């Protein structure tokens, strides 16, 4: 099982490999693409400059540095594309090939078919946007030439284990750290990056300097009521795509007022910029290792390098223990202690693989 880390430069590639990353993924958004389609239609679902390289020379440099250390690099091309974009996509695939990229990460069936028809010789990975919730879907993509399938981040541990055990020689990758969006990536059509188009200066510079990350990291340590007020303020309440701080109206023909209030309160905590911020699935490592999961994906191409390095080091420490501990409960305790020591706060209520779901008999639906 390998740790798959994001990186946006050759320098970052070297740093995360030194921390223990066994695989790297990157995105490229050339200026010409941005000019034609805007950041909202990013070629790889991450809209910020800080999440992407801007040319293929930078990618080639990153690939060379990674290959020097024997580490593969994957290019994320996991947006959904319309017919007019295909000439440019062809160019992307050719450039990726010339750079020596080891795999393309793809969500759109059209691009998968294109890469296959172009004679792409290296691997094809199905993005979480491919919505492979079951073994039949993995089979569908395998038949189309996929070497790896990334399981949606809403599948539970038992479901991931089931898929991994029935995947044959298809590699299985799961999410493990950071932004655990509540929506299903491949079925979500909210637009990211609208604010950058509306008020570019206000957004681009802070993003470039990672102020958003540091600010959120500081704010999450505030007392909950203060944090809640900030999250629902006019400025911070407009941040993000799918978790605007909405005014929520709850109506019901038969539920009493008290129940409606409960629903209102609990929905409110699901719609704000802290939603799923620091999601972690490290406690599931022990099971994933034994289930035959091949790769663990760290989310966060836009995170600052110190965060990326910290994430990889944390997971490397957990993986080493997971491999050597016979007792799962003992490992879980270690993972929680290690999380607190690494990040300076305890893991929150945003677990990728919540224990309470493991109590549910999924086969019974």
């Amino acid at each position, binding site marked *: 099982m390998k740790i798959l880390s994001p990186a946006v430069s050759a320098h970052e590639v070297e740093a995360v490999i030194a921390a223990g990353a066994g695989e790297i993924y990157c995105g490229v958004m050339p200026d010409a693409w941005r000019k*034609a389609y805007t950041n909202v239609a990013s070629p790889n679902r991450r809209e910020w400059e800080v999440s992407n390289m801007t040319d293929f020379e930078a990618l080639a440099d990153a690939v060379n540095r990674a290959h020097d250390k024997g580490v593969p690099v994957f290019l994320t091309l996991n947006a959904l594309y319309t*017919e007019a974009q295909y000439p440019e996509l062809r160019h992307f695939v050719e450039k990726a090939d010339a750079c020596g990229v080891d795999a393309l990460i793809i969500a759109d069936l059209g691009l998968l078919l*294109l890469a296959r028809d172009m004679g792409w010789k290296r691997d094809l990975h199905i993005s979480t946007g491919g919505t492979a919730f079951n073994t039949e879907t993995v089979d569908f993509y395998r038949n189309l030439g996929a070497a790896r399938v990334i399981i949606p981040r809403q599948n539970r541990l038992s479901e991931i284990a089931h898929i991994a055990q029935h995947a044959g020689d298809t590699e299985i990758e799961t999410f493990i750290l950071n932004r655990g969006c509540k929506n299903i990536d491949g079925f979500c059509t909210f637009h990211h990056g609208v604010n950058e188009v509306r008020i570019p200066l206000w957004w681009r510079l802070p993003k470039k300097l990672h102020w958003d990350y540091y600010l959120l990291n500081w704010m999450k340590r505030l007392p909950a009521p203060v944090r809640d007020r900030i999250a629902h303020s006019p400025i911070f309440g407009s941040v993000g795509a799918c978790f605007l701080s*909405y005014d929520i109206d709850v109506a019901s023909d038969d539920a009493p007022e008290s129940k409606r209030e409960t629903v209102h309160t609990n929905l409110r905590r699901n719609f704000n910029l802290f939603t799923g911020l620091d999601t972690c699935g490290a406690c599931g490592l022990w099971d994933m290792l034994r289930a035959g999961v091949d790769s663990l994906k760290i989310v966060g191409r836009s995170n600052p390098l110190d965060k990326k390095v910290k994430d990889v080091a944390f997971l490397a420490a957990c993986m080493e223990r997971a491999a050597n501990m016979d007792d799962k409960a003992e490992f879980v305790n270690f993972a929680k202690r290690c999380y607190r020591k690494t990040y300076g706060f305890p893991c929150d209520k945003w677990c990728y693989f919540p224990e309470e779901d493991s109590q549910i008999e999924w086969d019974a639906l």
Partner: protein
Amino acid sequence: MFSRLGELQAWEDKCDRVYFGHEFCQRLIPSGESIRQAIDHCAEKGWQFSLITPFVTSAGIAVVQERIAALLEHAPDGLEIVVNDFGVLNWLHREHPSVTIALGRLLTKQKRGPRIMRIADRLPRNARAHFQRSNIDAAHLTAFLTEMGVQRIELDNILQGIQRDSGMQASLYYPYAYVSTTRLCLLMNGEHPNKNLRSIGTCHRECRRYDVTLTHADMPVPLKLHGNTQFFRNDKLPKDLAALNITRLVYEPHLP
């Protein structure tokens, strides 16, 4: 389109075909008996029948397979399966290649998010055209889907308008377009909050009890949260449906 038998049986207006089932939640797949009753009701009224199926886990796909297999034993004329999971499509193509398949709106990608309207006047021409189109209309993808037995695609009535100049015949859903969906059901977590905010939890059919509206100054239209899915309403249909090769309108009298 109906997800509940009672709503279908109460429908008095005209239609040519009924969609019955659920697209967004495998817990709401109708029972075999409900499907049988729905088919009988449609036959009585002279309506054709489409079974609409959701995205599914490995446990869920077994249920879908069982329902479809039972349905095919006494398939009504004009039967169609609306598929929202590539695993279901894979299985149908392999096991039941003669079944008529429509590719559901979860698999026909449109940029449905209403916030695009906040920047519509700032978008370059290429971008505007991109946001009005679906990936599924790429010619080579249409050819592949045809090979897989797909005969129709399902589209939403998006606010920025639809552009199509090729592709297979399409259905258009109205008045509700979906924006996003989840397995971490927001309404379930609303009434019976889980300890962990990413739990799937135990369903108590909260979606049947509440009508939730989400409004925000940055969101051009209100969103309706129905169970695990968010929708917006758009009653304004495109002017020339034939030019868009839209040959069917799918009316949703209730939120799905």
